[in-house]
């Protein structure tokens, strides 16, 4: 190897030092993030696991201040998040497909994209207030369906955004290939583009489900919460985030414990949803 001239050498060391410093910064940042996450999870598991018992899953919330479980909140959350996702995810997907495949850079598409971004960054409490105005106040009653609608409105822009981003990553060559074989526009999208982007879109949907599963603010004005057992969509409905919100601030140690357990349930639920869909996606890929 030939030796470097002195000034090149000095420069070389300086560049090397900067390089190491930058890498150090990135590693430190990643480390801090990871430690925070670990701390949160550790706290969640240590505090939440203590309250796990069969009662949590079988008994509804108590109205007396002690005892009881979370069964109605679990079921209420499943119903509202389920319906919210079932409405919000397909709508969001269609918006994303429109933006990426049909509207592209047209004026209308730019407006839709802009509005979607606003919706995406709107405080969730605002969505709750909006749904209160259109779906609670006119009917004179808080309801599970209003809660589900609020969650759908929160999920939709997330899914729309990720769907558009993912579809734009699909190579133009697939579209050209499909068109050249005599596909119509909708066939290009349904038979080639969407299947190619399925994994990414699923990730977007899971992100949205995870987000709405933990939302409290939009439910306060819509499904309100309910300590009694109810699966009636037209009546106030319990949910885990609201149970946590109500119990965490209560003076009863029992209820505070249940709040932690509820938080753990949401986290584990979202985590499991992720794992299960990853595994099934991988299985599908393998054929």
């Amino acid at each position, binding site marked *: 190897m030939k030796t470097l001239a002195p000034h090149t050498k000095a420069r070389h060391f300086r560049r090397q030092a900067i390089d190491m410093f930058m890498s150090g910064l990135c590693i430190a940042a990643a480390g801090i993030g990871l430690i925070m996450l670990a701390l949160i999870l550790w706290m969640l598991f240590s505090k939440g696991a203590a309250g796990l018992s069969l009662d949590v899953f079988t008994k509804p919330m108590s109205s007396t201040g002690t005892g009881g479980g979370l069964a109605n909140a679990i079921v209420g959350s499943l119903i509202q998040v389920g319906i919210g996702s079932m409405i919000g995810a397909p709508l969001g997907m269609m918006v994303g497909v429109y933006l990426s495949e049909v509207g592209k850079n047209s004026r209308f598409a730019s407006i839709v994209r802009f509005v979607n971004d606003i919706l995406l960054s709107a405080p969730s409490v605002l969505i709750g207030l909006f749904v209160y105005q259109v779906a609670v106040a006119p009917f004179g009653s808080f309801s599970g369906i209003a809660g589900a609608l609020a969650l759908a409105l929160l999920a939709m822009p997330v899914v729309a955004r990720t769907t558009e981003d993912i579809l734009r990553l699909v190579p133009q060559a697939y579209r050209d290939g499909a*068109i*050249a*074989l005599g596909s119509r526009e909708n066939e290009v999208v349904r038979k080639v583009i969407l*299947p190619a982007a399925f994994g990414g879109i699923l990730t977007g949907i899971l992100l949205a489900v995870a987000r709405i599963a933990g939302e409290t603010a939009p439910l306060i004005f819509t499904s309100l919460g309910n300590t009694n057992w109810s699966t009636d969509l037209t009546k106030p409905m319990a949910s885990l985030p609201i149970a946590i919100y109500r119990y965490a601030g209560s003076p009863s140690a029992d209820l505070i414990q249940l709040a932690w357990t509820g938080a753990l349930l949401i986290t584990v639920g979202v985590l499991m949803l992720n794992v299960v869909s990853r595994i099934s996606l991988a299985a599908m890929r393998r*054929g």
Partner: protein
Amino acid sequence: MSRMETIAPPRPQVSASARVESGSVKVRARAVSVFYGEKQALFDVSLDMPEKSVSALIGPSGCGKSTFLRSINRMNDTIPGCRVTGEIAIDGDNINDKSVDPVLLRAQVGMVFQKPNPFPKSIFDNVAYGVRLHGLAESKRDLDQIVETSLIKAGLWDEVKDRLSASGMSLSGGQQQRLVIARAIAINPEIILMDEPCSALDPIATAKIEELIDELKTNFCIIIVTHSMAQAARVSQQTAFFHLGKLIEFGPTEQVFTNPRDTRTQDYITGRFG
């Protein structure tokens, strides 16, 4: 020419096939001009391409070869701001007529692109794509049969028959290119357009594709864009030379290469520019 061509194994002699009398006209272009917005990319191109033979389009980069090729299956329609004037007729029927559905036209005019573009689906599903789309198979057996014969015709069957359910993307570049050729011929087009189909391939894969083109011409009208003079000479019966958006010369390949009428053609094929 590039070193690649000297390594490639010898191809069937041009002179033998070049003298095959050109059959009836398959694609007729009359005063075709193409505009991208205000910019004109193709000027008054007129030529007749016969059926059951290979026509090569050559010329320096940016001279409009791909533009011309894309106007034959109306892929230019999909480019915003692109406008085609003049007449292109297949079997005498104007393909730009209002009554022609470009989607149905493309089912008759297959296209193979520069970079192999199999869909991220299984090998079987890639070939079956167009067959299913256009409802060309009556039963599952029928479909299996079409997929098999298409892969055989594309010279890929022996290499993939044991792994039809593997992803098309798992094949090598040359195999992928033969896969998309199988995909194109599975819907039984009459014309196959190829835009530099070998430019991403090594000499051996190139040789296979050229052999394939030679076989396909017994059934199809093939129009191929190529940057390789040697390839044009090996596979084509007619050669069209484009320069700056104009058709400079069009004739039997042998004549264009040995006795060009235009000095620009002469300069190009002898490597003096382009």
